[in-house]
């Protein structure tokens, strides 16, 4: 992947994470807590959560196995970065709060993967339909 593609991916994923964090906050956090500082905190969280994506960068083509391992490393890093930041800023204090927050991160991570996969499935269906037409014309 070229560096420009990596930056493009960073920006795209940043907004997905930020959007999902805001949606999650609106559903979970009391309305009076969501102020300018809270949104700034969320923006910082989204940026930090996006940084571990660098583990997917490679000069050569990654094998499926390598991608799966990198996905696991990516998730562990993501959890570590966000939980550390949440601890430092006092966003979570108790062990239960950390556990609940870690669970929230897991849910958001899985949601992003699921939404991406659904989009890819729709794209694959369109491609398959065109491939079928393509072959019908040929035969």
């Amino acid at each position: 992947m070229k560096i420009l593609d990596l930056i493009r991916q960073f920006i795209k994923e940043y907004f997905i994470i930020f959007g999902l964090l805001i949606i999650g906050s609106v559903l979970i956090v009391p309305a009076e807590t969501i102020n300018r500082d809270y949104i700034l905190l969320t923006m910082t969280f989204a940026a930090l959560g996006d940084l571990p994506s660098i583990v997917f960068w490679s000069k050569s083509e990654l094998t499926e196995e390598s991608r799966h391992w990198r996905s696991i490393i990516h998730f562990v890093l993501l959890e570590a970065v966000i939980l550390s930041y949440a601890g430092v800023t006092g966003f979570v204090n108790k062990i239960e709060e950390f556990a609940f927050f870690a669970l929230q991160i897991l849910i958001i991570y899985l949601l992003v993967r699921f939404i991406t996969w659904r989009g890819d499935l729709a794209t694959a269906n369109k491609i398959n339909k065109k491939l079928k037409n393509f072959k019908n014309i040929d035969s």
Partner: protein
Amino acid sequence: MKISIENITAHEEEEVIIRCYEVNDEILELMNKLKTERNILIGYNGDSIYQLNLSSVYYFESVDNKVFIYCRNEIYECKQKLYELEQICDHRRFFRASKSTIVNISKISHVKPSLSGRFETTMENGEKVLVSRQYVPMLKSKLGL
């Protein structure tokens, strides 16, 4: 190398004859250039040299600085670089699927998303080739999507 042109009558078939004492790399390269203009590639398998039609190619793959031609059941080595093949195949039904592969669209059976975030194409011979996310728009554009 001496180059001669012989004029022929309109009803005769045009022909290129290479006269050489040995088929060396220079001669093979020259043959490659002439044949790719006519959708023919030169494939190497052991000590044998084969003429391959582009339409019989399933995909090209670059492995450790060597380029291989994958047909239905056979694999041949190719002396051309992947970027050269990309140029040859540019206006044909081929697309760059990843840094290391060029795939013949006509030989794709179907496409599905892979769990790793890429796309997996199943070829007509059952082989699976991965398509990187950044090359999917190229496939879509070749299909008119």
